[in-house]
């Protein structure tokens, strides 16, 4: 039993570190984890799921806005990007945040192609993040189910 837990814990640790190293996450995610305590045991998962909902919604908005060829409302797209940037930085989704910065620049310069490209990238990025985080959470759950403690990962 213990070996399984230890294995899972090691796996969890490695996976988390890889996420940080690959730049999917940053310190803010660690901060979020710190905020998670007895009062709100699923705080991180909650926030993250909120974030992904938000993402989906915003990306949908932006896709719609960019779909209207001819008169794209860059301000609308810009504000959506800004929101996405805010929420991604709150969650610590580093790559999404970085993309948002580029996206915002494209928006400000009204670069349609750049915007579309960025949107696609953001879409891909957030989906991959989502998958990764789901893996991470499932790992966590496995650890908990196996009766182990979720290890503190120091980056």
């Amino acid at each position, binding site marked *: 039993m213990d070996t399984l837990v230890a294995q899972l814990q090691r796996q969890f640790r490695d996976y988390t570190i890889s996420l940080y190293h690959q730049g999917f996450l940053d310190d803010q995610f660690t901060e979020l984890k710190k*905020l998670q305590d007895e009062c709100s045991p699923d*705080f991180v998962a909650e926030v993250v799921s909120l974030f992904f909902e938000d993402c989906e919604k915003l990306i949908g908005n932006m896709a719609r806005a960019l779909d209207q060829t001819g008169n794209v409302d860059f301000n609308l797209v810009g504000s959506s990007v800004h929101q996405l940037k*805010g929420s991604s930085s709150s969650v610590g989704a580093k790559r999404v945040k970085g993309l948002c910065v580029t996206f915002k620049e494209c928006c400000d310069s009204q670069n349609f192609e750049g915007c579309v490209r960025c949107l696609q990238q953001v879409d891909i990025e957030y989906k991959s993040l989502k998958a990764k985080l789901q893996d991470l959470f499932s790992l966590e759950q496995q650890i908990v189910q196996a009766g182990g403690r979720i290890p503190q990962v120091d980056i």
Partner: protein
Amino acid sequence: MSIACELSNPNLKKTKAETIVGNWTSKKILLFRVLCGLVCISLVLWLCLSFYVGSLCICNKDAESSKGVLFRNHNVTRSEIDAMLSLFFDSNQVTSFECRKESNPGMWESYGITCSLSTRLEKDEEAKRHVAELMSSSEASILDNLEENVEKEEDESGHQDVLFYLMNKWHWWFVLCVLVAAHFIFEFHRRKEVSFLQDKQQTQCKRDGKLRKNMLLLCIIAGVSLSVFWFWHTNEKILRQRRETLTNMCEERARVLQDQFNVSMNHVHALSILVSTFHHGKTPSAIDQKTFSEYTERTNFERPLTSGVAYALKVTHSEREKFEKEHGWTIKKMNPEDQTLVHEFDPAPVQDEYAPVIFAQETVSHLVSVDMMSGNEDRENILRARALGKGVLTSPFQLLKSNHLGVILTFAVYNTNLPHDATEEERIQATIGYLGASYDMPSLVEKLLQQLASKQTISVNVYDTTNASSVIKMYGSEVGDMSEEHISSLDFGDPFRKHEMHCRFTQKPPIPWLAIMPPGFALVITFLLGYIFNEAINRIATVEEDIRKVRELKARAEAADVAKSQFLATVSHEIRTPMVGVLGMLKLLMDTDLDAKQMDFAETAHGSGKDLISLINEVLDQAKIESGRLELESVPFDLRFLLDNISSLLSGKAAEKGIELAVYVSSHVPAVIIGDPGRFRQIITNLVGNSIKFTQEKGHIFISVHLTNEVREPFDTEDEILKQRLGSDETCNTLSGYPAVNATGSWRNFRTFQDHISSDKIELLVTVEDTGVGIPFEAQSRIFTPFMQADSSTSRTYGGTGIGLSISKRLVELMQGEIGFVSKPGVGTTFSFTGVFGKDSSVTALELFDQSIHEFQGLKALVIDSRNIRAEVTRYHLQRVGISSIDIASSLGTASTSCASKLVNLDLVLVDKDAWNKEEYVAFSDLLNSGQETYTRPPKILLLATFTTPLELSEIKSSGLVDEVLMKPLRMSVLICCLQETMGDGKKRQIKRKPKNLGSLLRGKHILVVDDTVVNRRVADAVLRKYKALVTCVDSGKAAVAMLKPPHDFDACFMDLQMPEMDGFEATRRVRDLEEEMNKKTDQSRKWHTPILAMTADVIQATNEKCIKCGMDGFVSKPFEEEELYSSVARFFDK
């Protein structure tokens, strides 16, 4: 033509090819072409001019000669001729001018020349017509001559024309060749340019260099050919002159010789007539040998050239015997082999005819009786002479006796006067005798040449050229310059004989220095110029290369600089973030249970971290300033309050070192000024920090602030501090009594004591005086250079990067001020700086202690201090808290003796610790109490102390002599607290200690979080909840406004800035409006002002100002960081 086209429009092709450097290059090339063109033009002009002048001279000469001819031969009045000449001349001139003028625009067209030439011909025709017209009035006979002359001149001028034309043609070809060559070079370069279009920039310089080199080569070639041509031209002229001289001299000699000979011949002729008259004409003869010899001898002077004369009679064979008998001698035969012995002459053989000499001059008396017919030469001569009736000459032969070459002149003597047209037969018949004279040719020529000047320069040869195949040399030698010879024909009156005179210079022509020197110089100059230009071109090339390199390096350096600044900014920022964490953790660590050792370690670590942070901030500032990104805020702030803060911050350090720190602000300085408090604080902190660092265990640091207006008019000032500072050079009258340098020196060099400051601006002068080690004189010049400390040992001794002053200087400059200092090693340093600030009259005070100040108004205080300035500083602080009537006494003793009247109704007595004296104090307090009898409340005694050990403090306090001990530096808040404690009715107010962490700060506070993003909201909520705050979240500006509509019970609000519909700024504005409305309505003591803090992700963005403008109180960065959150929240919850 094509070149001309290119010259005029060189950009045509280029514009397509070149876009970036095109303009520049084309300009350069155009310049080169223009230069080339100018050179060519000047060359051609010069040539034209020289030829024009030459032809003009020739024309002139022609004209002169024709004038001479006319004048000599005809009775044409001089004026007429002159008029005509001027006409010629004019026409010539005009023609030449035309020609020249034509050649200018005709640079590129060779047909221009023919054109001009035709013009010239036309003009000549015209001139001729003019002459004809002019001459029609004069005699017809002249006309012919004139015509002839004109024709001659025309011929000549035609010749000139042809020459000119040829020459010009030659020049044109030359110029054309040069231009074509230049054109080809340009074409070549253009093609190259086109082919190397891509890496134009780099090869540009090289190509330019090559172009220039080619140009130079061309110029040098032109120069060399020019000088060669010049040399050739001059040399030709010299040779021509030489030839002319030779001709002239030769002709002169020939004519003289001829004349002499002819004269001599005439004399011989005369002699023959004499003989015919007196010998044959008279019977008996009037002449015999003796007479003849005598006469001839005496008249020899007339014939200086003859060596002797003899007369021979014509005797036929039939008459021979009779003749021989008559004379008594036989006719002898001439013996050419031996002429010396006459008597041995053999008798003449039988002949048809004899010519025996009967009379002879003394010199040739041996010839008497010799038959002249027996000599071949003589016989021929005699026959010819009698046939022609003129003097005839023999060919030269060796004369008898003298070994010179000579000729014999023979005249025939006729017995009758023959008519002119007598036939040969008649002449022969009439012949009766022959007169011969021998001429000694060499001596003849010798004599002649001696008469003429410069006989040395030329050598003369005389030849008999009767027989062309065998020329006989009569005189002269084969010396002299064989290359040049002039031949003049001589006419000695004998048509059968031909003689020639050959003249040549005895010397070879001298080296024509005149022709060599100027072209030589020109050549040398050309080469020198070529060398200089070559050097210049090389230099240009290297310089261009250097410039290119420098540009490259500059670009790289700039890029590196930008990169450095960015790197610094990034790194500093990146370092700051973890450092904040480190510091926060250390703080938390210090809050936990630590033993003394651990505490010490933690504190050290914390201190070091703080130092590091401040250093990073400095570096960041420097980087920002260097990249020009630092912008000053302009917000209203309370200067005095700011200075209080600074002094409290630094007092710890100062106290550690035992330095007294004091702040003084002139009463003229408004309470609230507009500027950048942070930067102002930074400057002062820097300066004071330095002062503390460099001041050792004694003395003081004194910060004073005045308006520059006060300093500018120092004698009107009422400010005591300023008076004392400006009044005398007595530097010992300072805060601590230690000598300091006179502060005036530090601002003496300021340019910007600006006279014209608009009414809403003020200029402050801040001085920071210390009694430190001072700055060495040699280091004073570089004190403001970044990273440069006074010397390298300074950093070892005192630490620091040396960046502070540099930043301060930049900041001061940003504040439109200046910074300066005066320093004396060992005495101290005084820094002063000026800065322009805004004056905000609308805000009277940002006082936090409004209410407290009212309490102290009307109090009466006495300051006892031995140091005047320190007393003034204390007075300033007391005035700040509202105490208006303040007296100053220098010591307790003087206070009790001289100021007794002032002691009445005192509320406060502040005694400096330096003036503290127990004995005096006892007397003083007695006095006080006596004066205070009627009042229930005795004056409070406060002791002002700089450094006091806790032990001492408690001792003083416990002695009960003083009510309270005030620690210097004085601060408003401290003073107020202290006064409240002592003056207040016993109720001691607890000074709240600052909560150590956010937990206690935020505990139980109601906080509204406004953010449209649910994630952010959730995170902020979690963070704040962690600090035990009660959090309410709303998702829009509108909701926030609704929530914050007073009355409400929120203690603070965190507001996102960018939200749909209503953003943070707008929401805040509305909330503030609502609050104001509410405040007006209720008019209660409690004023509604909910602290609203902006939440923003990008702190770098200059949104801060905007936040403040909208009525926000501050901002925190998203995501929250504890330290920052603490520092921004602490302001509002600290009370």
